[in-house]
């Protein structure tokens, strides 16, 4: 119903003007090592303290 009386064709391109260039920005498949979250410690710190 939104578009029953209003054609949207071409309206938006008029707002942003003519095309200038095309670019592509793609995320990596895997994060770099420094971007990985720190692993959880396998042994609680309290258990490493001397008795």
């Amino acid at each position, binding site marked *: 119903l939104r578009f029953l009386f*209003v054609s949207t064709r071409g*309206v*938006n391109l008029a*707002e*942003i003007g003519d*095309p200038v*260039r*095309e670019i592509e920005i793609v995320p*990596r498949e895997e994060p770099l090592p420094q971007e990985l979250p720190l692993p959880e410690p396998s042994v609680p710190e309290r258990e490493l303290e001397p008795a």
Partner: protein
Amino acid sequence: LSTPLFFDQTPVVAWRAWALVETGEGPELRSVVYAHPWPARAPLRMACEPGGCLGARWPMQPHACGIHAFKDRADAVAFPSMWEARRFPQGAFPEQSVVGQVSLWGRIVEHERGYRAELAYPYALLLSPEQGRFAAPLAARYNVDVLVEPHARP
């Protein structure tokens, strides 16, 4: 985003406006023109609209599809009322809108005053004082910065 994305190039950050709609799950961002809900914590992927493609392969013209955003904030601020005025020449604009920045990535066509992108997610939202009650729920829903600007227009 629920799944982090890692980029070698910074995504394009541009300005856009969203319709702000109250739903049973809280305030929701929707596209001004097509009223598509913007998903929370997941990218929005462009989809071609019937009648907007004219048989071309995206993103080549005369394609008009893609997630649109502006280079200048002023253009994003002006867009909802301009669009509403076209839809409702007699006035009585039924929706309220918010302005903010949006990250764009994937295939992007840069235009003179804006962009058309394949993928997008809100980067930050700017609310007027009258919209301040939406700040916390929008921040929680979309996990983005939401600022209430003292002099911003609703």
